[in-house]
């Protein structure tokens, strides 16, 4: 396999570039995505490469961005819309939820809405309560939407390419603190990661840990530490948060009998709860040896002060503690 090292940011850009080259129906829209390259520089250079016809800067009008994307998708194009920060999708929820997610169903399948909404998410940048949310749980409660959340550059590329090719509206959660992280990314033309397939990041036998986003990187750290102590953790990354491929999780829990779920977004009402519920209502409940341990972000808005913000999301230490708890080792 032809691999190249690059950042998560570059991998996303490469996915868009390749899909734009492949399919003339793909176009980009968003605020300052041209010369400026977007607030996080993800689209940098794409205006030069593809021109103003396909890389469209918009006024600050989030509802119009999402609705315009949906209308163009309904008529045959494949828009990729960027919200400058995920928090601003609050301004586009009607277009996304009442229109993009529902037009296919309401029309009995006569239209489809192949579009992607990219959402730079998460805390950790000192940007405060209105620029740091991860709202994925909302979208995982909206039938008609799909939700992706890549954690590595390779996943970012492979999932974004699939999302662009998918014939449904896909909410694509990107993590601001991952943009600079680097990794090897396949260069094959046909490299994609299919949606709705969970991925086993690491095999193990003592306990199942489900995680994604920046929390996954901390989980991996924690699991490496624990490996030194002879604890063997299986890590599953759902990749697509909705609809979620639960089978690998069920199988793993049946094998390990213990489950820890870790994510950065607020714990209460978060996607972790849904996973815990799915396990607790499944027959793999009968295999569980101890309560499920769910670790999430604090149930507070995100503060600016560094020492406060740092507490928002779980780190490797907290995760290791959670794993000990699930193993009955605390």
């Amino acid at each position, binding site marked *: 396999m032809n691999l190249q090292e690059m950042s998560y940011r570059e991998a996303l850009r490469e996915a868009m570039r390749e899909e734009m080259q492949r399919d003339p129906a793909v176009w980009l829209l968003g605020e300052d995505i041209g010369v400026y390259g977007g607030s996080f520089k993800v689209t940098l250079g794409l205006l030069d490469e593809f021109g103003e016809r396909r890389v*469209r800067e918009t006024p600050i009008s989030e509802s*119009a961005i999402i609705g315009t994307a949906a209308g163009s998708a309904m008529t045959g194009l494949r828009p990729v819309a960027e919200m400058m920060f995920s928090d601003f999708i609050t301004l586009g929820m009607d277009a996304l939820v009442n229109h993009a997610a529902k037009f296919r169903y*309401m029309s009995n399948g006569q239209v489809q809405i192949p579009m992607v909404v990219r959402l730079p998410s998460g805390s950790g940048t000192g940007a405060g309560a209105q620029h740091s949310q991860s709202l994925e749980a909302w979208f995982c409660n909206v039938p008609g939407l799909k939700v992706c959340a890549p954690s590595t550059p390779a996943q970012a590329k492979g999932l974004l390419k699939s999302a662009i090719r998918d014939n449904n509206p896909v909410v694509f959660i990107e993590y601001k603190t991952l943009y600079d992280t680097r990794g090897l990314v396949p260069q094959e033309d046909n490299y994609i990661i299919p949606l709705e397939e969970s991925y086993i990041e690491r095999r193990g036998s003592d306990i199942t840990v489900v995680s994604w986003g920046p929390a996954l990187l901390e989980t991996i750290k924690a699991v490496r530490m624990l490996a030194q102590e002879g604890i063997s953790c299986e890590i599953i990354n759902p990749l697509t948060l909705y609809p979620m491929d639960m089978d690998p999780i069920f199988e793993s829990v049946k094998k390990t009998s213990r489950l820890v779920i870790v994510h950065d977004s607020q714990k209460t009402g978060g996607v972790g709860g849904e996973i815990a519920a799915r396990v607790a209502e499944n027959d793999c409940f009968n295999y569980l040896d101890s309560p499920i341990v769910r670790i999430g972000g604090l149930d507070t808005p995100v503060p600016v002060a560094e020492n406060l913000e740092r507490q928002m999301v779980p780190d490797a230490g907290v995760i290791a503690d959670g794993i000990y708890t699930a193993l009955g080792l605390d």
Partner: protein
Amino acid sequence: MNLTTEELSQLYYRMLQARHFEETLEDLFHRRVLHGTTHLGIGQEAAGVGAAFAALKQGDLTILTHRGHNETIGLGADLTMLMGEMFGRSGGCSGGKGGSMHFIDLEHGNYGETGVVGGAYPLACGMAFTQQYNETGKAVLCVGGDGSVNEGNFHESLNLASVWKLPVVFFIENNLYSMSTPLEKEMNIINISDRSQSYGIPGITIDGNDVVEVYEIVRKALDYARSGEGPFLIEALTYRQCGHSKSDRQIYRSEQEVENWKKEDPIPRFAEYLIEHGLAEEGDLYRLERRAYEDVKVALAAAKEMPVPNDDSVYTDVYAE
């Protein structure tokens, strides 16, 4: 005038189809034969049918609001399919899933209604963007009501359409009310078309009960938009003679006001016009009216015979493959 005698007859005929269709619906909802709710445009047929007819002629695309029967029929929809949808039947134009507020009829370029006030504006921008992007030479007709022009979506969409020079005509049917709210409590200006100035686009207020005027202006506006000049805002003054939705007792306005507006009913007005200008004879009009009436009767009978959707269809088409 850009309309042949044949087309004028068509217009008249479709206005009557729309009128009979809606009067039938009114009765069905009143008698609780039908489930859900509906928004009728009785009295607004000149606006709805006239505008739709203009879009249809060049194969343009249309997107509608909650009160979309007139336009849908103006575009030439099959009444049986529409009526089937009102009954929530499998043969309805949305398979029974959409109902009165979510018609769709792609065959006639009709991308359907949205039940969310103002929700159509950004969709229309996107539809128009596709035309521009693919250089199809087509334009988009986007219908809205007077109440919808105070939604943020109206503002964002007209601004975006103007900056991007999108081929879209925003056609506002000003029926003087947003549900029970009279215009002066919705906004502090007289003419909605004046809002075009905020976007640097042309705007015009027209007599929405004059179907020929509506047709002519919408056609010109669509051509303007299609030519690359960008969006156009039209305000068509009209009146909803019926209640807002099935449960409206209309206590917010006087009967006198309604009666006065009934004198401006666009259908007799158009009939008079056709006869005065020697474009039709009374007999012709009578026959068209009978035909329209029959059409609705046939549609109604057919809809009633349609099976309800397969129970399992509740699960289908949430996602595309």
